[in-house]
């Protein structure tokens, strides 16, 4: 967060900024590397399925699929490293301790627990809709699920990529565990992102067909009022809400976001369909 600089020219506050451009770009790379990894990896996990052989052929055989898989892995690891370095920069250079604790932090906190309980009560009509801050509990779960997944899948993936080299450091039986964990975690990640994350982010009735915020970086004023009352109040109290005020993103950003989002959701749901088919016809 930069120092307070009042908006020079008053703009019609229809939107508030939420994600920086770099983070949106990183998310974009994350999306496509994730799709690439899922589509080239799942055929191995479901190698006994006919669709798996078909997918592998589509990529030009298992060797080509393996190259695409490793390429996407490099992209994703790069995204992860850039993200980590940005956090370190904010923490150590920007001295922004707010990312460790408090409303702008991804770190789970007591209020997340109460949000969860309150939200569940609201689902079944036992209470009012809870008020949310900058990051809700499910957003934090999404974040940490991916964070943990990157570490586990990425780490085990590297071990499987360079087994001869890793054998200098690790006992060979660990490759068995790396193989198991790589596949099971991947199944968890793919299943979670392509169903729960898609639902939370885009497909739930309030957002259907999609929430553009990750592409435009902005939420509407209405969304801010309806969904993040606590954040709005806090920022208003601090007098920093105007820093985030902005106009709508250009039309092309919406168009691009919708197209990219539609492609990702379509492919993701197709993959879920294939996995479910495999599990149900086993």
């Amino acid at each position: 967060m930069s120092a307070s600089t009042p908006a020079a020219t008053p703009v019609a506050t229809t939107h508030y900024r939420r994600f920086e451009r770099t983070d949106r770009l990183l998310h974009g790379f994350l999306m496509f590397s994730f799709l690439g990894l899922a589509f080239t990896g799942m055929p191995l996990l479901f190698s006994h399925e006919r669709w798996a052989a078909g997918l592998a052929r589509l990529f030009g055989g298992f060797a080509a699929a393996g190259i695409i898989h490793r390429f996407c892995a490099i992209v994703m690891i790069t995204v992860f490293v850039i993200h980590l370095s940005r956090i370190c920069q904010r923490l150590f250079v920007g001295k922004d301790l707010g990312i460790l604790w408090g409303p702008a932090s991804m770190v789970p906190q007591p209020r997340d627990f109460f949000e969860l309980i309150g939200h569940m009560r609201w689902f079944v009509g036992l209470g009012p809709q809870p008020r949310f801050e900058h990051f809700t509990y499910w957003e934090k779960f999404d974040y940490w699920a991916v964070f943990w997944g990157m570490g586990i899948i990425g780490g085990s993936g590297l071990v499987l990529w360079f087994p001869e080299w890793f054998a200098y450091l690790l006992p060979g039986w660990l490759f068995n565990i790396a193989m198991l964990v790589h596949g099971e975690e991947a199944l968890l990640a793919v299943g979670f992102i392509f169903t729960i994350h898609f639902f939370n982010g885009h497909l739930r009735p309030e957002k259907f067909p999609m929430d553009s915020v990750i592409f435009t970086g902005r939420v509407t004023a209405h969304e801010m009022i309806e969904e993040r009352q606590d954040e709005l109040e806090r920022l208003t109290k601090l007098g920093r809400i105007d820093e985030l005020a902005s106009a709508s993103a250009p039309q092309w950003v919406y168009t691009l976001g919708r197209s990219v989002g539609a492609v990702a959701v379509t492919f993701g749901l197709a993959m879920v369909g294939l996995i479910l088919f495999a599990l149900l016809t086993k």
Partner: protein
Amino acid sequence: MTRVLLRLLIGLVVLTGAEAVAMARPQSKAPGSVKPPANDDCLACHGDAGAVRANGTSVAVKAPEFAASIHGAGGVACVDCHTDLATGAEFPHPDKLKPAQCAACHDKAVAAYETGVHAQARRSGKNLTAAACVDCHGTHDIKPSADPESLTHHSKLLDTCGRCHGDEEIIKRGKIQIGNVVDLFRDSIHGRALTRSGLTVAPTCSDCHGNHDIRRKTDAASRVYRRTIPLTCGKCHEGIAREYWTSIHGAQVQKGSPLAPVCSSCHTAHEIRRADMEGWKVTVIKECGTCHEESIKTYRDTFHGQVTALGYSRVASCADCHGSHSIVPKSDPRSRVSDANRLQTCKKCHSGATASFAQYDPHGDPSNRARNPLLFYTSEFMKMLLIGVFAFFGIHTGLWFGRGLQMKAAARLRGSGKDDSTEDGR
């Protein structure tokens, strides 16, 4: 008196001459009977291309063809085979004659034939069209097997057997269980070598099945009886057979195991393919898995097993680690996967492998606590994690979805549904 003696002498000479002519034929006829018809007598009628029976079927014999046949060239008389005419019958003779009597000369071949599956099928009445002598050898045009024109020449036999065993209609009608084996064989490595490369050293049907005494594979005297197959294949693949008999499979077969694989268990009988072809390398894995169920299950959980399941053979399959013909149990020091040899085996592909690398379990089983304890507990943990996450968020999402729909409907009822302001709907 002198005239009488002279007549007797002339008569003797004539008789001796006639006797000599008769002796020159393979079969001498009982003296005193009516003189049998000569070949020319037969051809007087049968030489006519239009010669037919009462029912219109042809009885024509092509004289030049017969003359060029081994029998014709050897001076065999018609009646030597069609023996019921040898004693002289009224001509024209009856429509129905006995079949040509091959056994009159070829007694050993016919005796062998009588022990075979074709004769059996005929005798039992199950298949009266099963091959008899003429079906494979021809009739008046029989050539010796060494003649490239012969129906039983090495290069022609496949087509000859294929007249029945390659004809879907006949296979169906004769209820030949094995099916269209000739078609399968044609595309096999043996079939290609034989038909495309013209290799006469490549086996044809008779090399494995024998010729006259072709027996069922269930017959212990058959060349393709389970336990005999390695011997039959070993006639050519001598080196492989020697290796095989030292293997655990070979030893088990020798002991009479009904399960241990013989050559055809892995290579099939008629579709034998090159062992270095991708398709074969990935299919043969399933073959090992028919007995080694546990091993194929755990193999499929590994990268090796997954890649081969997708149909690619660049990674290790069973034989790459365990060997093929000389396979022995892991406890045997000769085994490629014995503790002493395993690293060398890994190194065939993973050139940088170390002793630590070779601690990898290529048949790790996440459900086997005794064999892979850490893998077992990791697997249990992952299962709980997956079930936990999906169960919790499944419920969470389901409830949220219901509530969301309800809110939407309520908003629409209030008339604010048109104001779609929660969506950033540009």
